[in-house]
């Protein structure tokens, strides 16, 4: 008998009697609360930075000030390609450009959109189609993510509800290609480690900084940043 059949037979023979799944747990109810302050507080506590902005011009201004020495900037946001090209030795890449993942070795700053943020842990959900290449959000020295300010959910339960909705929408709009994403990740803060005597160090293998921009078109630039 193959190992597969042997394992499955033993498991079936040894598994306990039926035990139903518990009812869905959705976490505490938080209707009508602005989740932005909680998201920003937690993101800052885990080593990230957050900016409430009115739009892409503001993002370009802030990034120019934050990363004046960035040599290679890559983005999948068409609103920022001019900014990226202006600072970059190589031309900015669009989402359609296929590339060898190793070619991103020298990226100083990647600016990518993400779908939404999670208030309880400061994480952003980003899928393959937003990141040019899977390795980019990890190999870049610095990462900036952009989400709409109103795209913040309370907990991971609402996050997975949102993921299911995103997938259903993609399925409805695409006919031939596989609609679901092949890779996706929650990113919460910059890469970090505390393996040496529990001392927190930002920038283990991935980005040394993470900046999240919360875009609110109704916002006035005055008074911010």
């Amino acid at each position, binding site marked *: 008998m193959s190992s597969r059949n042997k394992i499955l037979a033993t498991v079936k023979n040894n598994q306990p009697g039926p035990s139903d799944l518990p009812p869905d747990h959705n976490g505490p109810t938080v209707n009508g609360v602005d989740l932005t302050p909680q998201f920003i507080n937690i993101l800052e506590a885990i080593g990230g930075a957050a900016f409430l902005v009115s739009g892409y011009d503001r993002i370009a201004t802030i990034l120019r000030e934050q990363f004046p020495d960035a040599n290679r900037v890559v983005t999948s946001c068409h609103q920022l390609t001019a900014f990226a090209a202006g600072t970059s030795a190589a031309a900015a890449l669009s989402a359609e450009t296929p590339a060898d993942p190793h070619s991103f070795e020298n990226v100083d700053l990647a600016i990518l959109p993400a779908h939404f943020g999670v208030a309880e842990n400061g994480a952003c959900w980003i899928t393959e189609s937003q990141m040019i290449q899977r390795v980019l959000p990890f190999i870049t020295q610095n990462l900036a993510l952009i989400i709409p300010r109103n795209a913040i959910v309370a907990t*991971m*339960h609402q996050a997975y509800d949102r993921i299911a909705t995103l997938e259903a929408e993609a399925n409805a709009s695409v006919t031939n290609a596989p609609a679901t994403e092949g890779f996706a990740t929650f990113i*919460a803060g910059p890469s970090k480690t505390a393996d040496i005597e529990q001392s927190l160090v930002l920038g283990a293998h991935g980005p040394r900084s993470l900046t999240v921009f919360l875009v609110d078109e109704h916002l006035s630039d005055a008074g911010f940043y």
Partner: protein
Amino acid sequence: MSSSTNHKDHAALATQFNKDEARVDWHDQTLWFVRAKRDKAAAQVPDWETLRDTASRIKDNVLSNLSEYLKQFEEAATRNGIIVHWAADAKEHNEIVLSILRNHKVDRMVKSKSMLTEECHLNEFLKDNGVEVVDTDLGERVVQLADEPPSHIVLPCIHWKKEEIGQLFHKHLGTPEGNADPQFLTYAARLHLREKFLTRRAALTGVNFAVAETGEFVVCTNEGNADMGAHLADVHIACMGIEKLVPQRRHLGVFLRLLTRSATGQPITTYSSHFKRPRPGQEMHIVLVDNGRSTHLGRKDFRNSLKCIRCAACFNTCPVYRRSGGHSYHTAVAGPIGSILSPNLDMKQYSDLPFASTLCGSCSNVCPVKIDIHEQLYKWRQVIVQEGNATAAKTAAMKTMSWVLSSPGVYHTAGKAGRWFMLNVPFTVKNKWNAWYLQRELPEPPKQSFGQWYKKNRKQ
């Protein structure tokens, strides 16, 4: 270390660790610091207890329907373009990994943290077959350079001091001698390992959760090393124990809320990556490993331990683990959970581990999936003694005790004799052959027994 059969037992290894008292205190306090962070994180989640209960019940359902979920997962993953393998034991697991690497003519690989591969002794096996493995988690790289196994499943080099890591990096990575700055050493490791990520064509990762419904798997890291390896490699091999399944994707919400808060007190790991399909041109493999798990599932009193999500909260809280160190458990998964998982793999070799506990129950109280760890430790003791795996000294002591306690005459004589010896010739009990005297001061012997006192006072 755990592959050797002539190992010292937990008590002997703990004694070795305890020779340096200041170091034991430091180890104890470092882990307690992590435990305190866990408490703070848990207290900030209002529905924490409901979450634990829900997680535990989801895992009950997984165990009760595991054969179906495994088939469902295999089918979905295969549909997604992932190649699924089944390994009955450690040997088959190692051979599958080697054959994948040989097919691709790969003899150098990067690996992110996987306790399963520690359990299977994959690194040694691959080394013997001419494959170089570089562990890329910083803590794992430290212990790998030092030629040691990890001492903790989440914090692999928690027993190392920064000065010692500085010395180790000086020797292997060429950092300046005497530099023990964590920031500097981490940066040196970043440069050292970036070169490995960029040049290795195969990457192996562990799996935190796999979803039966969708055929995807989730890998959680803070460093980003699993992603750096997997997304740069032509071949990604993910190895998982068969118990890592959850039924539906939405169940990940429950487990991801619990995992890192329980492990380090962070609200979530920096990266929680969901792998569903290989990227174009890449090959993705999953190895489903049994290695004793299906047998364990049949042990009614012990199967609950298969719910474990490897957060290590039970390590950090355990008064024995904190003061005896991970290596004293001579197994890949140490601590309280390792002490109930390991006897299933080899009852003789790990017969000492269920005794490495005070049964205080703190492990069960912090467990995010509500495993009755301390009760299982207690139950393992009965099984081990019944099956004749207790040490000769313990068996003899228990038999003597049973003889003394079952006969009032013998009991009174023994009590009298004990008091007489302690009063008149204390050196006969206060010596290195009396295990009870080693870490304890013996009490002043009373002048009379309670029996004598009662008789006297009732007359008055």
